[in-house]
């Protein structure tokens, strides 16, 4: 029977797979290193751990940027910048549970800084992502697809701050507390922005 490859033990709240480590010397040294959480190895300045972090997160961060409305080129650049920020602020990383929030907080800051610097460019790159068709059939499918397109267009037109709340809470599937932390605002402020965003969306698609 084929054995499924084992994933390394993950702590609760850890939302990325821990990749298998290479053992260059065959001495089992990497296996020993694997005993240490990724965050600890990052704090210790381990470059292999940094590469693991990139492997686990570059795609989600890129998609996060795309969902926030950046075009492809900008999203790639901003993904690079997120990791520059991560290398610079590695000392602030507490533990593996905080890893996800820490990296997305950097990503949200990088995105906000970009919008501030390129106000004239506040484009709706989200429109450029292909929306694959769902599994529904017939007229229902067409109607549903149309509704999705409407909502997507409405999200793309939202002001950056409101769009960010929608992306964090609905598209990245984060709780209000997590999303507020990443956005760098209080939960109450986040909820209020989210309500404004939803109101605006409903008006747009009504």
């Amino acid at each position: 029977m084929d054995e499924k490859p084992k994933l390394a033990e993950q702590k609760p709240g850890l939302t990325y797979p821990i990749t298998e480590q290479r053992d260059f010397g065959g001495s089992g040294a990497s296996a020993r290193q694997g005993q240490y959480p990724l965050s600890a190895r990052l704090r210790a300045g381990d470059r292999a751990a940094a590469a693991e972090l990139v492997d686990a997160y570059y795609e989600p961060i890129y998609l996060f940027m795309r969902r926030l409305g950046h075009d492809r080129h900008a999203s790639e650049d901003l993904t690079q910048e997120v990791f520059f920020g991560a290398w610079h602020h590695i000392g602030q990383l507490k533990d593996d549970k905080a890893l996800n929030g820490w990296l997305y907080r950097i990503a949200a800051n990088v995105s906000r800084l970009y919008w501030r610097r390129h106000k004239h460019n506040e484009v709706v790159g989200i429109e450029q992502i292909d929306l694959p068709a769902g599994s529904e059939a017939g007229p229902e499918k067409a109607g549903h697809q149309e509704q999705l397109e409407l909502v997507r267009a409405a999200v793309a037109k939202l002001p950056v701050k409101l769009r960010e709340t929608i992306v964090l809470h609905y598209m990245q599937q984060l709780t209000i507390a997590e999303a507020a932390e990443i956005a760098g605002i209080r939960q109450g402020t986040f909820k209020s922005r989210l309500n404004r965003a939803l109101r605006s969306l409903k008006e747009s698609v009504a």
Partner: protein
Amino acid sequence: MEDKKVHELLTELGRRLTEPVRPGLGEEIKQRIPHRLSRHKIGWDTVNIIIDLRLSKSVAAAAIIIAMILLLNLFGGRGSSVRGLVQDSVLLVKYWGREDISAVRSKYEYLLHRGEDVKWYGDSIDTKDSRAVLMQQRLPDGRYVITFVDGGEKEVDSQELLDLLGRMLQGKAG
């Protein structure tokens, strides 16, 4: 449209809004991991790793860094020439113990590679001065983002930049 429906559509949108990421992006990011990651206090995590590896701290650090440099240069780093290796070694020695500067330097090289209008002042400033300007990046609107030695960033106009650079030069002359 009902609230519930909007919530459902948004959740579905999040699931469907996806696209393949350009192959090679991850590798590009990995190639720009600085030689020394940012400042950290050597704590029990490091000590435990070193004890487990049964290597002295300096030997372990030297082995890891040399191996990384060699690998970087051999497998598609910033150039597989001896010159590239020498350049990396010089940078490594120069910014040894200054992880913050090393991280900004990596960013500078990346921005330069991307064709941005950037200038590096790290070679001519007093790096002990945490508010000395390490790098400047010209933005499309004519303003500048400057990065200080302590890693802080500030957006300034050309006049402010001149003032800052002037003050820095005066400090050096004084």
